[in-house]
């Protein structure tokens, strides 16, 4: 329906009438050629009548273009009943004069042909019906019934040509349905040449699985997608999946979202996945792929975003129970409507139907994250080539909408680790590999990031433990003994711990010894200092004493001199002493 993105197709081409059929207008760049006849051909049961009816009903209800349905095979009542299952209320539209249904009944056994005739009666009826509702759209279903009713094919062929011409002159956008012929597109081999647009519907069964496909065989005056597009018919009518028409022009978000496992986020540059990227989780059975998905789902819902979980192996109840055992409770998210678990057997539908269902659910639920668990099972619903094509389209589709997608791939035991069954690895942005590491009689889980586009990521293997509290990533032991996991890692870690302790104790002992030695030395220093101080004080004392003695002596001499009298005499002994000294 998004016609804006296909403006390059519209360009200078002719005017188009949107069909309103989901997806078809994208392939055709806007719809069917307005005012011209389009042939819808296909074998019985491929959905021609419904196609025509949806074209009319959508025209009447969505584009305000009334229509005429000229039925050659079913009465108006039967048609009404048939399309009610698609949610179309034909009776109401007829009552509101939006759609006119004319049932053309041709009973071969009642008819005798003699001589020249034409189909003017048909033209008259068509004209009347068109005028009655002011129709812009006309469906003739199935024109070939005429060839069953009349034997003069020469006349019929020329009348058919005239009819196409007449419809064009009338300016109505017409759909003419036709049975697929043996060799060509139609039995008569003229309709496809006189139609401006030919759409081929196909319903094929491959390995007991049916797939409906649509292909625009020709479209005069416009470019169009030429691939086969799968389509489905369900309670909302026809949806065509024009996934392969999407180019590689999806925007790339720089936003990062958590994987729900902090250890894994750390490995992915510390921030987790890019929003809108495709993530592949591959590994052998029992390596914890689903648990990883559950974490991602949980993290998504915790952020208040919606997550669509497509389970191809487990029922929603089983999944919820199993995840509870690792501490993830889906119940509140399911109740809040943030999580939707869609479980179906891969073999229930063909691949295209699966793809179509994903499309529908994505359109309805508008999730932020889609988890497909696992994609490897889809191979069971088709061939490997088909599965790859389907996944390519699925990845493209989700990427185009900025939806982060996580795909789980179960690697068969004998296969190479780095090989996906469905060969989608090149489309994947982030590839996480889970593997068993067998060592010392144990199987342990290892995780590593094989690639992650556009971010710095760890190149190391982490051992990952599934505990009651969820997944925990553990650094594995990488040392002279090699890579160790599980209890060997634990034992090695214990050994290292013991060695560590030993070393620490030794160091502590040395420190203690040093402290003691320091204390002893310090004590010695103190004693010496004390000794020195004592000596010093003694010396000072004796100095003081001798000074005092000198003073006393001098005083004594003075006194003695004074006693002898006269200053001269006083100096005499001095002189004597001086002379003695000299």
């Amino acid at each position, binding site marked *: 329906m998004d016609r804006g993105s296909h403006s390059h197709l519209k360009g200078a081409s002719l005017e188009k009438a949107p069909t309103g059929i989901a997806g078809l207008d994208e392939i055709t760049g806007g719809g069917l050629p307005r005012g011209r006849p389009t042939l819808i051909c296909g074998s019985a049961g491929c959905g021609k009548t419904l196609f025509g009816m949806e074209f009319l009903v959508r025209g009447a209800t969505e584009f305000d273009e009334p229509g005429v349905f000229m039925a050659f095979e079913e009465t108006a009542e039967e048609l009404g009943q048939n399309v009610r299952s698609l949610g179309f209320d034909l009776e109401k539209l007829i009552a509101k004069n939006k759609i006119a249904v004319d049932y053309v009944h041709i009973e071969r056994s009642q008819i005798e042909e003699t001589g020249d005739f034409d189909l003017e009666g048909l*033209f008259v009826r068509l004209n009347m019906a068109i005028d009655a509702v002011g129709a812009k759209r006309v469906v003739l279903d199935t024109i070939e019934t005429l060839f069953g009713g*009349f034997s003069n094919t020469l006349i019929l062929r020329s009348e058919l040509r005239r009819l196409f011409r007449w419809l064009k002159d009338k300016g109505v956008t017409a759909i003419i349905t036709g049975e697929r012929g043996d060799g060509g597109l139609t039995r008569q081999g003229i309709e496809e040449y006189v139609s401006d647009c030919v759409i081929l519907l196909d319903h094929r069964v491959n390995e007991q699985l049916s797939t409906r496909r649509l292909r625009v065989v020709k479209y005069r005056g416009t470019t169009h997608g030429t691939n086969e597009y799968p389509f489905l018919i369900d309670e909302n009518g026809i949806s065509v999946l024009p996934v392969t028409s999407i180019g590689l022009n999806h925007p790339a978000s720089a936003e990062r979202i958590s994987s729900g496992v902090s250890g894994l986020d750390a490995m992915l540059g510390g921030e987790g996945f890019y929003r809108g990227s495709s993530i592949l989780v591959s590994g052998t059975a029992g390596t914890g792929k689903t648990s990883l998905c559950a974490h991602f789902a949980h993290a998504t819902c915790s952020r208040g975003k919606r997550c669509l979980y497509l389970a191809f192996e487990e029922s929603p109840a089983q999944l919820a129970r199993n995840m509870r055992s690792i501490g993830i409770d889906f119940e509140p998210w399911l109740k809040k409507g943030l999580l939707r678990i869609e479980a179906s057997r891969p073999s229930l539908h063909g691949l295209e139907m699966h793809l179509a269902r994903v499309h529908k659910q994505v359109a309805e639920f508008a999730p932020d994250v889609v988890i497909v668990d696992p994609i490897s099972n889809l191979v069971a619903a088709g061939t490997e080539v088909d599965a790859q094509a389907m996944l390519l389209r699925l990845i493209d589709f989700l990427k185009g909408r900025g939806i982060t997608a996580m795909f789980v791939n179960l690697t068969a035991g004998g296969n190479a680790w780095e090989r996906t069954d469905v060969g989608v690895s090149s489309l994947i942005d982030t590839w996480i590999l889970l593997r068993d590491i067998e060592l010392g009689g144990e199987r342990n889980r290892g995780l590593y990031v094989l690639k992650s586009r556009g971010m710095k990521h760890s190149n190391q293997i982490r051992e990952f433990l599934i505990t009651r509290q969820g997944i925990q990533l553990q650094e594995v032991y990488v040392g002279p003994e090699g890579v160790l996991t599980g209890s060997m890692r634990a034992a090695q870690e214990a050994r290292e711990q013991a060695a560590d302790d030993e070393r620490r104790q030794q160091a502590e002992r040395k420190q203690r010894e040093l402290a003691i030695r320091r204390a002893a030395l310090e004590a010695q220093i103190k004693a010496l200092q004390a000794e020195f101080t004592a000596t010093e004080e003694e010396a000072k004392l004796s100095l003081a004493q001798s000074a005092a003695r000198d003073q006393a002596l001098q005083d004594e001499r003075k006194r003695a001199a004074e006693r002898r009298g006269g200053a001269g005499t006083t100096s005499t002994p001095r002189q004597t002493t001086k002379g003695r000294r000299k």
Partner: protein
Amino acid sequence: MSGGKTSKTARSSKGDKGAAEEMWDLRLYTAGQTPKSMAAIRNLKRICEEHLPGRYNIEVIDLMANPRLAKDDQIVAIPTLVRKLPDPLRKIVGDLSDEHRTLVGLQLRRHPQEERT
């Protein structure tokens, strides 16, 4: 062919007799004054005069004037001759230029294939 006819004369004449007792109600649908329509009207009148003198009633309906009748009477081809009476309803498509086929269509003459059986 004539031998076959005589062998089944009893039933066939009985049918003719039955038909003789009732009026033939014929309706011819045309669309405008096309050569085909004009030819059909001419041919029909001639055949009726010849095979059903005095006990036929022809109604010519121009769908250009009454388009609704095309739907009501399930008319697709033009011209179409409808035998409303006697039952059952029969339709003959074309300009009625082939008298034999017209008579077979009107069940005034048995179908060659039926005669052989």
